């Protein structure tokens, strides 16, 4: 065929050590499987699909793992491969990781996200509803349907819009939490706080938002941030830890304002 096309690639054989856990209360253990005839063009999850087809036909329990879009945008997939959340490739979800990133004979350890705030549901599937609760606490702009002004009535400087978009790109996968030694969710929370805080529409609630989201984040049992930077390294959307710094400033300012207000309403200093 054309030179742009690939020839037939050699297939690979890999050894997989996969975390199996029946349910939340089961202790769990690693089980070893063989993945044969793995094509380099297969995605990581397609490789697991093939392993599962084999397990099903042998009457064994297939490996449960989360996925949906298989194109790196929904944030539902997420496994730790050889210690790296989403695997070895930078800025790539595990559903977009392709087997050409590995070699014939490789051994892969595959585990779920590990964090107190993300309890295991089954095998590689975890419960990330903590993220939704953090958003419910303040990750929004209060704008009930119907009362919006014309789209161009609010001018947004291009630089602010672009930076807000950088922060808004977060897909809520939780890799940041999984990679952090403290299981901190600061990258996730700061991404949303920054996205909304950078826009004029987000100003009225800016202080409320950061205080409420951080409070919820703490209540969920995520750890604190001690500047390891592991989160940024594994983030599939390359969200920057500069947003964490930005949120810290926002938070301190909001805290100071809240104290000043409560002093004032208590009858002056």
């Amino acid at each position: 065929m054309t030179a742009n096309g690939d020839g037939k690639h050699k297939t690979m054989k890999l050894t997989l050590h996969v975390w199996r856990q029946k349910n939340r209360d089961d202790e769990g253990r690693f089980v070893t499987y063989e993945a044969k005839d793995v094509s380099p063009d297969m995605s990581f999850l397609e490789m697991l699909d093939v392993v599962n087809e084999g397990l099903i036909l042998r009457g064994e329990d297939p490996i449960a793992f989360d996925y949906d879009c298989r194109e790196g945008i929904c944030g539902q997939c997420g496994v730790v491969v050889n210690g790296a959340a989403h695997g070895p490739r930078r800025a790539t979800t595990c559903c977009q990781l392709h087997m050409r990133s590995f070699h014939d004979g490789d051994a892969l350890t595959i585990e779920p996200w590990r964090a107190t705030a993300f309890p295991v549901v089954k095998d590689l599937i975890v419960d990330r509803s903590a993220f939704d609760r953090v958003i419910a606490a303040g990750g929004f702009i209060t704008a009930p349907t119907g009362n919006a002004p014309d789209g161009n009535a609010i001018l947004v400087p291009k630089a602010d819009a672009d930076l807000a978009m950088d922060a808004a790109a977060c897909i809520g996968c939780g890799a940041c939490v999984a990679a952090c030694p403290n299981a901190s969710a600061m990258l996730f929370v700061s991404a949303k706080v920054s996205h909304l805080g950078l826009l004029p529409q987000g100003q009225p609630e800016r202080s409320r938002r950061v205080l409420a989201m951080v409070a919820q984040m703490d209540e969920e049992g995520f750890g604190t941030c001690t500047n390891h930077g592991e989160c940024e390294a594994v983030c599939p959307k390359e969200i920057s830890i500069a947003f964490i710094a930005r949120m810290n400033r926002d938070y301190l300012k909001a805290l100071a304002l809240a104290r000043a207000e409560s002093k004032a309403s208590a009858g002056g200093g």
Partner: protein
Amino acid sequence: MELKSNVPSGPLAQKWTKHKFDMKLVSPANRRRYTVIVVGSGLAGASAAATLAELGYHVKCYCYQDSPRRAHSIAAQGGINAAKNYQNDGDSVDRLFYDTVKGGDFRSREANVHRLAEVSLNIIDQCVAQGVPFAREYGGTLTNRSFGGAQVSRTFYARGQTGQQLLLGAYQALERQIGLGTVEMFARHEMQELVLVDGRARGIVTRDLVNGKIESHAADAVILATGGYGTVFYLATYAKGANTTAIWRAHKKGAAFANPCFTQIHPTCIPVTGDHQSKLTLMSESLRNDGRIWVPKTKRDARSPDEIPEDERDYYLERKYPSYGNLAPRDIASRAAKEVCDEGRGVGPTGLGVYLDFHEAIQRLGEDTIRERYGNLFEMYERITDENPYRVPMRIYPAIHYTMGGLWVDYNLMSTIPGLHVLGEANFSDHGANRLGASALMQGLADGYFIAPCTIGHYLGSNKLEPVTVEHAAFREAEAQVAARAKRLLGIRGKRTVDSFHRELGHVLWENCGMERSQRSLEAALARIPELREEFWRNVTVPGSGEELNQSLEKAGRVADFLELGELLCLDALERSESCGCHFRTEFQTEDHEAKRDDANFCHVAAWEHAGEGKRPVRHVEPLEFETLTLATRSYK
């Protein structure tokens, strides 16, 4: 079964305004007495659930994923249309309306489409207010780009993540309501059955996907916003979990299914690499703003693209359709790609591919500008194919992407089952036989933010509803049916996996009911699908039990429904003896191989009524009349 569109009287441009005044209301104090169920949390579902809750209704919302933000609306890349005319290039509500009706090849309901164009303006305003980070000009105003089927620049976008950003706006509004306690959210729950009491939709039965529990939920009205059914073809650009189950179950309980064969094939997707392929990945139509599509002029040209000089390249869309060029609508662009590949001029290892080339755009605009516009899409392409689109042209091929067909709805977005409303891609109606790019996002939000909240109020305000609880016999019966079905699937313990049946069904449909359909191919599919279905129920193997998280059982239920829908799809294609939009019957084409409509006999919606197990469904017809437009041959030359 009667199909009453309930389109209001009066001039087209005033119908919706008049209707909003004429519709019944529910007073604020009374709203909290009503519960509305919303199945699906994508653009249409999340926006409807959030808005209804803001108005004061109690809402229960369901999604099969682990969070409402995972809905596949999130994957839409390119943009959302609105007739703002910010670019001063001649856009207007009327033009968007006309482009959409023409784009749909005159097979949509005129009044619905006009309303869609009208509310498109409000959608942009609402999204901006929520903080959707749309792209901006240096002066701070919103910027636009062009999309297929339009000669104006009316598409608003947020880099290559417009779907995610719009969905996050709706999701965040939804979470605010969840935090306030007005919406009860049931993530990892899948609807298994619709429950009717006295002929009205009064609730659903769900399976908790974590522990397998079957539960009933009662309501005063039910909304299905569960997306499209394109995964019946197995390989499609949809999420793996996308399915037809909610609307199919409703169809079997009496909701007419309209134009099921109107399935859209998107021209720019990454080609298949092997049998292991689990889905196809879309390359946004926005790329066609700057990329040029071509194949070599010679058959089986094995040279690499940079070795092929300009005069030996066939920029076939520019050649065939000079006014629209590379932005010809999707059905036309897809068929044109198939044509050149069938001639032996396709590229790539399988010969099923055409080039989408940015070389000229990079020369003209510089790599930095291209990176800014399409950066994340280029990265996605490279991850999947290991080829660098800044250096070599992208290879693309058409793939199933959207379904214009869906449950039939009237002007109030209510199905033939009283109380059952259907929003977004799950319904038929606005896009006719072909959807224009950047219109799906527009329709989902139009339905959810601005239409359903009014029409649900109208339904509740117009009908006296007896209180119903989950103790009602209809719920018990439905739960028993769901449990029996699961038990049956688990008990078969055959020799073939669910996926193997799904793949085969998808292959049969793609080959026989894909880009080109003929009486012969459709009859072949109609013979094969029942055989495959019969084998499924005899020979599928579903491991595990129903009392735990069981992804195979989830898939089995969805594929069982696909094995029925697939047949209806082919039947619909066979009965529609014309070509229009995405539906191309080889027997009905012009001399230049374009779709040949038969307006005299087929200017209607085909709405199918389920007639019982094993019985041939009944085809009803809603004639389509266009009061403001003359039916034209759809030409993009």
